[in-house]
């Protein structure tokens, strides 16, 4: 009798429970890939006081950036170790932002949304990434720029991000509203609601 194993879910200590290692970079999108011209691109952070902080592409790219090497974990069970990115820390983007709200809704070109606690975006844990593996970020992987929040399942690292809106409560984003976990910690296997 043949026994189905599926992709081997390893005991590798670098892998969260239920994950397998992949060398490829699978693409998962809730919709078509938007084509975004960096001339039209804009990124904003909107606060409860009605303030909107805006960056054009040139302003964004001129901010201090860093090389990032992190492991990423998709809720569909693949993990990729030591991925290399370049991007701007959210600490930098939030430096001038004043807010009393604890939660963030990320909005993307194409309409995708995902919710995150502000505390988990700060202190060197999250970036706006615009390069992958030394090259500009491919549109199918979220280019020109995507969120990179590697300590949460990868659906939280929204592709094609255009803005962050502060919210007083942890209102669900797109997948979260449709049955996925509000938080999404791979080490605690927070896959579903």
């Amino acid at each position: 009798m043949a026994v189905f194993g599926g992709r081997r879910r390893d005991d590798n200590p670098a892998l969260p429970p239920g994950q397998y290692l992949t060398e490829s970079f699978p693409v998962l999108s809730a919709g078509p890939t938007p084509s975004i011209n960096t001339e039209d691109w804009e990124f904003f952070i909107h606060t409860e006081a009605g303030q909107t902080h805006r960056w054009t592409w040139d302003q964004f790219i001129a901010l201090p950036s860093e090389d990032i090497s992190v492991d990423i974990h998709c809720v569909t069970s693949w993990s990729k170790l030591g991925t290399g990115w370049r991007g701007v820390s959210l600490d930098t983007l939030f430096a001038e932002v004043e807010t009393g709200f604890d939660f963030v809704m990320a909005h993307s070109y194409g309409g995708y949304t995902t919710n995150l606690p502000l505390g988990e975006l700060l202190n060197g844990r999250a970036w706006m990434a615009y390069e992958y593996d030394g090259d500009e970020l491919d549109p199918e992987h979220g280019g020109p720029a995507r969120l990179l929040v590697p300590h949460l399942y990868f659906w939280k690292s929204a592709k094609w991000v255009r803005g962050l809106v502060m919210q007083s409560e942890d209102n669900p984003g797109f997948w979260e509203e449709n049955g996925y976990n509000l938080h999404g910690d791979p080490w605690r296997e927070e896959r579903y609601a």
Partner: protein
Amino acid sequence: MDHLDGNVLAGPSTDLFAFDPTTTQCQCQSCADIATLGQAMVYGQPMGFVARCRKCDNILIVIVERAGQKSFNMRGLRWLRIADHARNDRISAED
């Protein structure tokens, strides 16, 4: 994984309706296009099934399936129109 056709919704919606939704006519909330659900474009696998309007990409239906539970969202549909054959498509062999 690139997108699929609305036909693929027939599986995850089996236990949701007494009819086969992929052969029903429906109208997009956003652009008013009327089409058979089988003509929608389906993204989002393997996280879920995100069916979008063939004309304007508006999200018509979202289904997330996992062991023991299913989440179903029809937020982008104005209506579904069910023909008798769609109901017959769903009558189980045991009936």
